[in-house]
């Protein structure tokens, strides 16, 4: 038994926030945003929108394309590091509103790698023969956890959701997945307050409710681990980089994407990038990119694609798919 991608979907909130709209930062600093990361705009959810709302939109788009009934879905794995609430799982609201009445529903959190982690788990569950159809969603509203005064984080992230429906198949569509972590780097990307280590009631510094990131160290990790695991995945599948139709990296920073291309030995345009429009949408980014690429004809049925993600944890994941 194998798993293959039946369909994909995504949802980006309507509100476009361009770099020029970030008026809290000094005017001469605005060109730095695109120069340092490639991000020219991002989407921000409306105040009334929640992570589950974004996830639901992406899920509906994905399920509609597949032509199946939501009640046929066996499970929903929702990756998010910006959930609706600490509990219950954000996935359960999606399950209910989608009408996926038979599906188990749980959240996972591997920060920016979460989408690939979800794919890894769903592929394993289908290969085990226990489940036939699993919906994997990455959904994030980072704009609620960013410090609007922090230039090293606020301009680079955006809100969005992507979804992917995996189904059982006789031929392998998901050729390979892997996931890993190194908790020694757990302080490099974090939201300090709100959990048991620093409950809200004990918070002294109000800024501890915001996302923090040690950018330079994360950059080094991303380019080193990202290229290493992508090359390892290709080797496991006995594939050469040139056989991959498109590479889809986590959309963190265009310089990371270009450096990955250089280290893997492919042209920069072998890697798809849409971070210019959406910024870093964390665990949603790879699925949003995959959906856009499929919709634009950049990947057709039968094409090979390599997916790679890395981020907080530190965690990473990779997959080779034949769409």
């Amino acid at each position, binding site marked *: 038994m194998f798993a293959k991608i039946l369909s994909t979907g995504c949802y980006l909130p309507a509100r476009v926030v361009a770099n020029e709209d970030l008026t809290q930062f*000094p005017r001469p600093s605005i060109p730095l945003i695109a120069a340092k990361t490639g991000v020219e705009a991002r989407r921000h959810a409306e105040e009334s929108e929640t992570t589950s709302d974004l996830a639901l939109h992406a899920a509906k788009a994905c399920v509609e394309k597949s032509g199946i009934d939501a009640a046929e879905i066996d499970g929903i794995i929702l990756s998010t590091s910006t959930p609706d609430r600490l509990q219950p799982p954000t996935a359960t609201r999606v399950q209910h509103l989608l009408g996926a009445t038979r599906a188990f529903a749980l959240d996972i959190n591997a920060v920016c790698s979460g989408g690939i982690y979800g794919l890894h788990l769903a592929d394993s569950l289908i290969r085990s023969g226990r489940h036939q159809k699993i919906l994997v969603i990455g959904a994030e509203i980072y704009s609620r956890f960013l410090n609007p005064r922090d230039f090293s984080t606020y301009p680079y992230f955006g809100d969005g959701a992507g979804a992917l429906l995996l189904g059982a198949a006789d031929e392998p569509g998901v050729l390979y997945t892997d996931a890993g972590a190194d908790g020694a780097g757990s302080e490099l990307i974090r939201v300090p307050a709100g959990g048991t280590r620093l409950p809200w009631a004990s918070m002294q510094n109000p800024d501890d409710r915001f996302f923090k990131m040690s950018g330079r160290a994360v950059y080094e990790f991303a380019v080193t681990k990202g290229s290493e695991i992508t090359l390892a995945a290709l080797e496991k599948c006995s594939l050469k980089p040139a056989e991959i139709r498109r590479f889809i990296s986590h959309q963190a920073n265009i310089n990371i994407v270009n450096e990955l291309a250089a280290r893997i030995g492919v042209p920069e345009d072998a890697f798809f990038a849409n971070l210019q429009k959406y910024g870093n949408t964390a665990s949603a980014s790879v699925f949003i990119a995959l959906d856009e690429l499929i919709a634009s004809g950049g990947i057709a049925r039968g094409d090979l694609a390599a997916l790679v993600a890395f981020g907080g944890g530190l965690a990473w994941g990779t997959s080779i798919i034949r769409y």
Partner: protein
Amino acid sequence: MTKLQSVLTEVCELDGTPVAANAPFGEIKGWDSMRAVTFQVELERLFGVDLSDTMIPANWTLDELAGVLQQKGVTSERLS
């Protein structure tokens, strides 16, 4: 630790040792162009000054920055 040292320590996520008043920002661990902007935005918020048309250069020091802020009307008491 002065107010400026405190803000700089927070922005650059330093271990709490005060940054020397005559050390160029570019030589401070954790300083980069991103954090320079965050530092500037924090100063604007804290002292109610408008620095929006400038960028703090890496060769400035806390002493030089304090002088600029004083020229913009921030008293030495508020900086201490």
